[in-house]
């Protein structure tokens, strides 16, 4: 079984090597696309196996758990790997037209594939220290992508991104060391068994908070999100799309994993903090967005706001809330990456992302306008798009536990999201271009339009599909939430597969 788990990891890294060797040729970009297609196939196989057999695990190098490094996939891991591959493929196609030859020769495609590999590894590992290593793989490649091209703004954004992410990394490492000192194990499944037996539960809670801060920084929750709006609007559009879709979500995934599997002993304390963090994140994110006047800066603040919803699902910790968190996670990655891709096309056509300097896209590029509306309305939670069901489940979950105030915040933030989206709509699409030019699609060079529009259309179609046929996705999220809330299967598979 181990190949099912290791192939999705091997493909991106192998692709990265080939893409790096071919970085000065046009074939390099097609290698990246091919690798992404293969990743998608491999993740599909992984998903099918996990759906059929339940949790699967493999011990690397035949070192039995809990001593060796375990790769493990439950439904949450599997779906995150699939979504990573989908986003990876969409962005790899988009990059065909978006990334310049200069950026390619600096190794864009190799860094991109390493990033995808790092993200996939973080989702698949069952070992805390190995998770740290995957975080680092992801970080170093994201550093490279962020400053690729050496723009003034990129360097500035890069400094803040690098600095705060390195601090969070050190906190993660310290937490890992202390947890090891307390329990003597690093295997997540083994930790789930050993941590409740630790005598001094107060210390466990302290370490839990350390992890909460470290992962919270990665996930960009209040008040640790400042690096995100400082940097996400600076790199190439492909890069900010893949960052927006995936990177913060790795933090959210790590929070969900640790706070459903390991740190569940003192929920009255830890999950209460998470609940208020979630509310503050939703509100500050959406208010920050309202104050911005740049396409990508608005979207960046909305990432922060949307992270709040996922943390909310984790914090409420009822079966329905976890279903909501998983559903939200999946829906959000598609929608958010897509919005950034749209902003890239808008910039190509009109020459800027400053709202005051662009306009007229509704008249000259109606297809793009429709394709913007789908993810934008989904983000705000309009029926029948995917975001409606995600928000509906979370609001229902908070009403079920009589958390009226939380439900109110979630709804009010949805309303304010519409405000930002209509602002973009009005400024970018409806109002005429301030310089009187007609930003038509034909302004793009020949053959440059389809790699930009195809991924946007595909992901918008996916959003509509999830919205119109939510039942299989909710059923999936329910099974996944059941696995998260009762990790006995996860633990038994990891520790039992030592044979």
């Amino acid at each position: 079984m181990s190949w099912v788990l290791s192939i999705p990891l091997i493909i991106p890294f192998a692709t990265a090597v080939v893409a790096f060797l071919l970085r000065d040729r046009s074939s390099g970009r097609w290698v990246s696309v091919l690798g992404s297609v293969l990743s998608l196939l491999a993740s599909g196989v992984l998903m099918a196996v996990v759906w059929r057999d339940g949790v699967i695990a493999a011990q690397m190098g035949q070192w039995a758990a809990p001593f060796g490094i375990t790769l493990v996939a439950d439904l949450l891991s599997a779906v995150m790997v699939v979504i990573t591959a989908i986003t990876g493929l969409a962005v790899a196609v988009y990059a065909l037209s978006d990334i310049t030859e200069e950026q390619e020769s600096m190794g864009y495609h190799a860094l991109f594939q390493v990033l995808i590999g790092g993200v996939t590894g973080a989702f698949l590992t069952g070992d805390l220290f190995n998770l740290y290593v995957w975080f680092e793989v992801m970080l170093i490649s994201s550093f490279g992508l962020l400053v690729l091209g050496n723009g003034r703004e990129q360097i500035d954004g890069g400094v803040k991104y690098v600095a705060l992410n390195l601090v969070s990394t050190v906190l993660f490492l310290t937490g890992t060391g202390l947890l090891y000192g307390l329990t003597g194990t690093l295997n997540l499944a083994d930790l789930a068994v050993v941590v409740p037996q630790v005598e001094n539960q107060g210390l466990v809670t302290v370490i839990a908070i350390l992890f909460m801060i470290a992962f919270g920084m990665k996930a960009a929750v209040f008040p640790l999100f400042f690096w995100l709006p400082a940097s996400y609007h600076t790199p190439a559009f492909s890069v900010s799309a893949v960052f927006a879709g995936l990177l913060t979500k790795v933090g959210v995934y790590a929070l969900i994993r640790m706070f459903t599997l390991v740190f569940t002993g003192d929920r009255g304390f830890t999950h209460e903090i998470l609940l208020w963090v979630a509310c503050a994140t939703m509100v500050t994110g959406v208010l920050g967005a309202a104050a911005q006047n740049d396409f990508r800066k608005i979207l960046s603040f909305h990432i922060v706001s949307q992270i709040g919803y996922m943390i909310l699902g984790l914090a409420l910790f009822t079966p329905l809330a976890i279903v909501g968190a998983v559903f939200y996670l999946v829906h959000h990655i598609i929608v958010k990456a897509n919005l950034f891709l749209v902003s890239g096309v808008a910039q190509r056509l009109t020459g800027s992302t400053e709202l005051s300097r662009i306009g007229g896209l509704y008249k000259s590029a109606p297809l793009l306008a429709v394709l913007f509306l789908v993810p934008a309305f989904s983000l705000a939670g309009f029926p029948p798009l995917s975001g409606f069901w995600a928000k509906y489940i979370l609001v229902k979950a908070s009403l079920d536990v009589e958390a009226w105030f939380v439900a109110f915040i979630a709804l009010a933030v949805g309303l304010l999201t519409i405000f930002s989206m209509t602002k973009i709509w009005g400024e970018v699409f409806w109002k005429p271009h301030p310089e009187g030019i007609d930003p038509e699609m034909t302004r793009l060079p020949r053959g440059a339009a389809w790699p930009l529009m195809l991924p946007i259309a595909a992901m918008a179609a996916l959003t509509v599909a999830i919205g119109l046929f939510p039942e299989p996705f909710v059923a999936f999220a329910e099974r996944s939430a059941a696995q998260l809330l009762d990790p006995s299967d996860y633990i038994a598979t990891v520790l039992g597969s030592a044979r």
Partner: protein
Amino acid sequence: MEVVVSVLVGVLFAAAVYMMLAGNLLRFLLGLILISNGANLAIFAAGRLTAGAPPLIPEGADEPIGLVANALPQALVLTAIVIGFGLFAFALVLALRAYWTFGTLETDEMRAAEPREDAK
């Protein structure tokens, strides 16, 4: 022994936080070295310290005899040092680049990506 190392870790963290809050990128990076060394020492101490007992298995035995040093934290620290070194090298080059671009390392004056609204 663990107590001494723990105190050292505390001192390193405190000094590192002080440096990192100084508002200068170079001091931040020096703080970063200190704090990552602090974290490495914390892992080392968390694995319990033993003096003069290498984790060697005598010939003919299946496991080490008596109390020996814990080898796992050393492997972890080694990995963390290597990773930390790579990241630090990148951060240092980035800082140099930032200095060339902006002519300053004062973080308050680095506003290229987020210009002040009232500066215009």
